[in-house]
Each structure stands twice: as structure tokens, then as C-alpha cells.
């Protein structure tokens, strides 16, 4: 598959099935999707429609049952777990619905963790910078249990950006937060997306959040369609 650098994520005929006792469940069917570098993309859809599953496949957390996934110029559906992990370490950042900070580490340590694991030198300095950027320089040495939900999510965002990933995946980043806090967290995401040129793929239930993205996809029972912005009138993607 030839890949242009602009095409940062691409999938072809992507399917995901799980075997249940008795029958197989098709979670995702025939997903064809292209995301360019620097895009911000929202995936919306009903609960249980397969959004998180797709995110997992795009990020190389899981492998598809069939079909291809290209991430940062590499086919990842054929890579093994460890190779995908290394790819994630290089290119990918995450923000999760339930933050998923390591409770044993302080805010700063949580932020610097990916950089340190990747062997980067100036992790601490940049960690402090990022925490300042998300407005938590006062809470650097707090532990997750001592932080509010919004603060935790901001730490998580700082953690996601420390390796300067080319692409950031966010699974319902503001779902666990009240709307004001959620909005602040979203602002941060977009800000960093713009300033660092990061590709942003986020899953959300929130139409307002989706509307802030350049492109919106709708997941419905495992099938993906791009919602067309009125002005441009582009056709279906999937």
C-alpha cells in the first residue's frame, strides 16, 4: 500500500468480530476511513455501537479480524503486540474517559512517565512545562487521589502530549466531568492539537464537542459514515 505522508491513518475493509458461545458478534463491519495529518476528527454514535472498538484498532491497541490499518505510514494489523507498542510509544497519545492515571505516581511523575519509558532526557523539565500549560503547576506533586476529576483529566492530557505524539486518541475525554470543566479540558485538547500540529481523533457522545472537530463520523451498529458538513457537500466515506 502506498502511503502519502498526509494520510496519517487509513483503514480498508476493517472488520472486528468476537466469538461468543453459539455465534459470532460483528462489532465493526467494513470500515474504510482516511484521516490526514493535523485533522481533528470526532466519532459519535450510540452506546455500544463500536466507537471504542474502532479507536482501539486505529491506535493499535487491538488487531482487526480482517482488513487493514495503516498508522503513521505502517501497516499495523500485521505487527505483533510489541511492535505496535513501540509504534504507539513513538506516535500515539491517549486521553481516556476515566483518566487512568497511575495512583502511585504524582501528577508530574504521571506526566513524565511515557517520556521516561521512551528514554527521553529532559522529561521532567517538559513535564513541568506541560503541567503549567494545563494550569496545574501548583499541583505538580499531588497524587491522583488528591486531585479533582477535571484536574486529573488535565494531567492526563499533559501526559498524552509529553512525547509530542503525531496523533492523539481521546475516548470521551469529558464525559466524566461537569460541563464547565469538560469544556476547559476540551479547549486544552484543541489548543494543543493546533499548536503542536497533532492529529486528534476523539470519541464522544457530546454533539457540541463533535461540532468543534473538522470532521465528524457517525458510528451506527458497527458501520461508519462521515457526517457531511453542509457547506462542502462531500460524499460518504464508508
Amino acid at each position: 500500500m502506498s502511503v502519502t505522508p498526509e494520510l496519517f491513518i487509513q483503514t480498508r475493509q476493517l472488520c472486528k468480530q468476537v466469538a461468543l458461545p453459539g455465534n459470532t458478534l460483528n462489532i465493526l463491519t467494513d470500515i474504510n476511513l482516511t484521516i490526514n495529518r493535523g485533522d481533528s476528527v470526532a466519532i459519535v454514535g450510540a452506546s455500544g455501537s463500536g466507537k471504542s472498538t474502532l479507536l482501539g484498532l486505529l491506535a493499535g491497541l487491538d488487531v482487526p479480524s480482517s482488513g487493514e490499518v495503516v498508522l503513521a505510514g505502517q501497516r499495523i494489523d500485521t505487527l505483533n503486540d510489541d511492535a505496535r507498542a513501540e509504534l504507539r510509544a513513538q506516535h500515539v497519545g491517549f486521553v481516556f474517559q476515566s483518566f487512568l492515571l497511575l495512583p502511585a505516581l504524582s501528577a508530574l511523575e504521571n506526566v513524565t512517565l511515557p517520556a521516561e519509558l521512551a528514554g527521553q532526557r529532559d522529561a521532567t523539565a517538559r513535564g513541568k512545562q506541560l503541567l503549567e500549560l494545563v494550569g496545574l503547576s501548583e499541583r505538580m506533586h499531588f497524587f491522583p487521589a488528591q486531585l479533582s476529576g477535571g484536574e486529573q483529566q488535565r494531567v492526563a492530557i499533559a501526559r498524552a502530549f509529553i512525547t509530542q505524539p503525531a496523533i492523539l486518541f481521546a475516548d470521551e475525554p469529558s464525559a466524566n466531568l461537569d460541563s464547565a470543566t469538560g469544556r476547559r479540558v476540551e479547549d486544552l485538547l484543541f489548543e494543543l492539537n493546533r499548536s503542536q500540529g497533532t492529529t486528534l481523533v476523539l470519541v464522544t457522545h457530546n454533539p457540541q464537542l463533535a461540532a468543534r472537530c473538522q470532521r465528524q463520523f457517525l458510528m451506527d451498529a458497527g458501520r461508519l459514515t462521515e457526517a457531511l458538513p453542509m457547506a462542502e457537500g462531500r460524499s460518504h466515506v464508508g
Partner: protein
Amino acid sequence: MWAKVAWRLFWRELKNGELWVIAFALMLAVLTVVSLSGITDSVRSALMQRSSNFTAADKVLRSSSPFQPEILQQAEQLGLQTAQQIQFNTMLFAGDNMQLVNVKAVSSQYPLRGELLLDTAAGQNSIVAPGSVYLEARLAQILAVRVGDLLDVGAAKLKVGGIILEEPDAPLNLFGGQPRVMMHLSDVAATEVIQPGSRISYRYLFAGSEVKLKQLETDIKPLLNANDRWQQLDRQSAVGSALDRAERFLLLAGLLGIVLAAAAAAVAANRYSQRHQMAVAVIKALGVTAPLARKIYFSHLALVTGFASLCGLLLGLLANFAVQGILGQWIEGYQAVFSSKSAWLGISTALICSLLFSLRPVWRLTAVPAIEVLRQQNGDSRIDYWQLLSGSVAVLALMWLFSGDIWLSGMLFLACAGFGLCLLGFAAVLVRVAKPMAAGQSSALKLALANLRRRLWQNSFQLMTFSLALFLTLVLYFLRAELLEQWKQQVPENAPNQFLVNMTATEKDQIAQQLQQAGLATGTFYPMISGRVLAVNGEMLQEPEQDDGAASRSNQASKQQSSEQSAAQQSTAEPASGRQGFGRELNLSWLSELPANNQITAGQWFDGPAQVSVEQQQAERLQLKLGDKLTFAIGGQQFDATVSSFRKVDWNSLQPNFFMLLSPDLMEHFPATYLTAFYLPETQQSVLTALLKQFPTVSVISVAVILQQVTSIIDQVSLALTLILILVFAAAVLVLVAQVQATVEQREQELAILRTLGARGRFLRQAVLYEFAALGLLAGVFATILAEVLLAIVQMRMFQLPFNLHQSLWGLGPVTGVVLLTVLGALLLRGILQPTPASLIRRALHN
């Protein structure tokens, strides 16, 4: 780079207390193994060393044939110390006075252990000089000689060199042995006592390390004659058997402690792995490969194992040091023994524990896929059968390693497993039954029971571990109490510490009166007379072929075994086949009442004239049946007696005991001497001195020192028992803590949900505490039942103690269960029971 992250994570986990339960459990297992094996080793060696003092050597070889230079050469080549001794009976003449005496001729190296103290013209020393004889004090009195006088010993004329004050291997001639004379080995030839056919006992004394002594034993085997015997420590003696039981108890306790600690380690490792699944998924999502994750978490495991084993080892060694210190105070010249064995056992324990209990959970942990970050659920809590298997193998391996006894380990393991399964079944049934019971209860109770039911399997498993932990602690608690009680009975406070022997009937009454005046209580005055058993049912008994010294001593010792000392001198050999006589005179007594520490095992106590009651073991030896006719000879007179009963005698009791008790009618007309025992407080020594001055022919045998030592051994052993009980209890509590903690997260979430649904805090607290109380009650009851069963088995089989129902157990067991679990539950869950709903909800959501 990973190392830095791993180290930081480790340090933080340690700070957060995440790793402590694992570390504590491992440490406890190591500590138990190290301290127990160390303590038993050193107590055993202390006993050996102490008994060495009583035999004046570490090992004694007895022979009826003259010394073989080869044996001594072999010993010296091995680097062992040697000494020689010859014992024989002979007449001693001092002018017109004469006396049959027991002579002990020793080489210059004597004694190798213990202390000899002689009162000579040159002051007190321990030199047996050639050309001199040394006499027991009463002998000097009988012969009316002083230091410097000349005596005839056989053909030799020897000078009285001094009085024997202390003799390490003095015979315990409690009941009329010949007075002791000591001389140098080099003078024996001149006495011309040694003639073909004369009864001489030759003794080789050896001292040195245990290994070399063992080596010697195998080396010289081909040189030994049929009648040569190694003298051994007798386990039947008071202290020997006390220690034997203590050792078994310690072994058992250690095994159970290890099982508990191991269980705690396993539970804690599982919980750790479950709690960290999300963290592993997160770091994997952040780009950590599986090998790297493994490196991080296995390094944690290695650090915990290393740290815990080190602490366990150090603490264990410290405990050993302490015990050695105590032993040093109690045995003069005690040489501390530190074998590396206990350290190795400890390290192996740690390795087995961490490999077989923790490796698997940590492996599973690092195998958690990154995709878990997108699944909003707690990690799976299924039972891992591999871990169950590897854990079982580990427990068995540990038990085997520690006890060196595959059979005992296997049985105990199967018993525990069986109990576990029973409990699991019971628990499952009970938890099912709890639902209908809950109907109509107060709502907090109802919720508690509903909760119990909901976590059916988890709770059954918990209940099983709770019950096992309680059960093991209860068993040990009661066994320990039982042992201490037994020992107390054996050596009661104010146990008789002085024996008076050789009293005539008139002296007896005067002495009884004087003692009474001095406020001293005397026990029974046993009439005693020497006699022989000639025949059984008219068939003459054969005389055993044995060297005289050993024979009389050995029989004397086992017959009237009243102290450790006699036990130490008892030969291992018993003459074999045929109906052989005793080869010497026995001390016979007659009593109308059965002594308190005797028990009839067959037949009836005297119900007619001319009857005899025989001690059980001797009856076996003589192949006697009830109704057999024994022919006795006292002086020149013979008479018959019918065997009317067999008796079991408690040789452990420090009381006079007799092989043969005759019905009073048989012996009334024989001239007997009397024997009694009484307790003499330290402060009243003068009473005894006065008494002896007044009645010079009466002998006193003091067992005060021996008694003191017995008591102090028992004290030390009791202390060790208490220590081990504490260790085991700690292990049990640790299991409970690990178990309760394992459910904290789940409870947290449930509580949060219930609270958001509007349940009041007080109500929830009550429900949780009821739940724990109910669990505790169930566990307590199960534990009590099982403990009673096991106690019965162990008591009867392992310790040969009589069975009795433990009434207090039935109260203690359930109450301990309820209190312990409720308190632990309240303590461990106080964090989630107290806070405001908001913080609770936040915490629940963040999990």
C-alpha cells in the same frame, strides 16, 4: 531508563502499602522457618551439651573387653579428645574397717565435659593424681579415714588423696549403690583386681564435633565387640520427652505457620496483580512492550522477595541469637551453634514462596492487553487454576523442606486440603441457606446476608481461609497450653528435690517427726528391700551376659528413673532373646495402696495374699501373663507370688518407682529400709545438715540442681512455644488482612452505589459489620469443630497425651472469630465506611 521508572514505581508502591502485605507474608514465612529451625537446633544442641556434662564426654562407648588402642588412635586421628575409664566393684580396707565400693579409675584427660571437684590437702582441684584414691564423703565417714591415710585397694596400697565434691558423671545411686572411689588409671594394674572372669566395665570417652563423632562411630564399627554399646541420651527422661514434644510442637507450628504465611503471600500477590491490571494496561497503551512490563513488575517482585527474605533472615537470626544468649546463661560453657542450615532453609522458603505464589499472578498481570484501557471494567477475578496448582506444590515443597518428613508433610497437607474443601462446601451451602433466614430480619442484617450471598464464591473462599487461619491458631494455642500443663504436672512447684534413703524403721519415725517440726512435708515412706527374681512358673531365669556396671546402672536407671542424670547414663542396649533375669538384685517394695502416678493396665490391685504387681515393660520383657507365679529370693529366703496386675508407671515423674510391688503380707517380716522424698527450700539447708549429722548412715540424694535445670529448660521451651504461637497468630491475621483487603475495591464500589441510591451511612456501616461478624462467627464455629477433631488426633497420636474435650475452645473459637473479623473489617474498611458520599463516589469512579 525502565529501571528508573521501575524503581520509582516500586518505591511508591511500597510507600502506599501496596507491597507490604506480600513483603510481610514472605518475611513471616522466612522468619518462621529461620527462627524455628535455629531454635530447635540450638535447644537440641544445648540439651546434648548439658547431657555431655553428665557423662563427662560427648559420647561414651562401653565395653566389657580391655581398651583397644586402635579405637583411641582412630579417635585421635579424627581430632577428637579422648579419655578412658575403668569401673569395678571391690572391697576397700582401712585397718579393721572395710566396705564394698565402686571404683572408677580414670585417665588424666578425664573429664572431657563437666567439672570434677576434689577436696585435697592442696585445696580444691580436679587432678586425680596417680598413687591416690578419692572417696565419697560418706565413705570416708564409714571407713573413718582422713586425707593422707593409707588404704588397701586389692593388692595396692594407696593414699587417700581427697574427698569427691563434684563428679560430673556420678551414678545416681538413689537406692543403695556402693559408695564411690576414684583413682588414676595407671594404678589399676597394681591392684590386681582385673582377673579373668572379673566384671569390669571399660569406657571410652570422646569429645568433639558432632560430625567427627558420627564419623568415628562408623569408622570403628568393625572393631566393636557384641557387647560394646554407645551410651545415648534417653528421650524417655523427663526433659528428653518434654523437649521431644516441644520439638514436635515447634515443627507442627512451623509447618502451619508456613502454610498460613504462604497463603497470605498468595492472596496478597493475587490482589496486587488484580489491582494493577489497569496500570499495566495503561503503560502498555502508552507504548510499553510486554517484555518491558515484565521487567518492571518482576523487578518489583524480586525486590520484595529480596527485601522480605533479608528482613526475615535477619529477624530470624536475631531470634536465634537471643535464644543462644538465654541458653548460654543457663548452661555453663554453652557453645553457641550456628548452622547455615536455617539460613538456607529461609532463603529457599522465600524463593519457593515468591516463585510459586507470586510469579504466576505477576505473569498474568504483565499479560494484560493494552486494549483493557478502553474497557471500563475491573480486571477479571476468576480463580486461576494454575496458581492453585503451583501454590499447592509450593506449600507441599515448603513443608517437606522444613520438616524433612514427606509423610508428615503429605498428611498435614492433605488434611488442610481436605478441610479446605469441606469448608468450601459448607460455606457454599450455608451462604445459600442464608437467604431465607434473612427474611423478616432488620434491614441492615438483611443487606448483610444478601451481600454474603452475592459474593458467594468469593465469600466461600474467604470463609475457608478465615476458618483455616483461626483453626490453626486455635489448635496451636491449645496444644501449647496442654504441653505446659503436662510439664507443670511433671515438675510441680515444690516438687520433692531431696531423697532420703537407707532409713531404718525407727530412724524413719524420728526423721519424719523432725522434718515435720521444721515445717517440711514428707511424702510416702516407701519400704524397700533388695531381692532377686529367680524363676517364672518354676522355670529358672537365665543370667544376662552383660558387664556388671552397665547392667546395674542401666536397670537402675530405668527402674527408678528419677532424673535426667540417670537417663543420660542409660545404655541403649537391652538384652535380647529368651527369658532372662535381671542379673542383679531389684529394689522391692510393698504397698497396700496403688501409688498415685501408677496405673493398672491389666488385672486387679491386690485382693488377696501373695500377689505381685509388675511394671508393664518388665512384664513384657519377662513375657509374663496374669496369674504367672514368680519366685523371689531375699537374703536366703525364697517365696512365691502370683502376678495379679500390670502397672503403667510414669517414669517422667520425679517420684520413686518400682518394677515389682508386692502385697504387704509377703514382706512384713523382712528387714526393710525406708525411702522418702521431700521438698527442701534453699533457705532450710541447715535442717538437712543437722539431720545427716544425727543419722550418719542415712544417705541423701539431692536432685535440686537437676530439678532447677529441668524447670529452666521448660521455661525456655515455653518461651519458644509462646513466640511461635505469636508468629503463627501474626501469619493468621495477615491472611485475614490480605483477604479483607482483596475485597475492599469491590466493596468500595458497592457502597458508593448504595449511598448514591440513598442508603444512610450508619445503616451501611452496620450492614458491613454484620457481614463481617457473621463471617467471623461461621469461621469461628468451623474452626472450633475442626480444631477439636485435629487436637484429638494430634494429642493422641503425636504427643501420646490423653484426649479430653476442650470446653473453653467452644467459647473461645467463635468469639475470637467474631471479634477478630469485625475489628479487622472495621479497621480495614474504615476508610470507605467513614467518608462523605462525594469523596466516596469519586474514589469509586476512579478505580
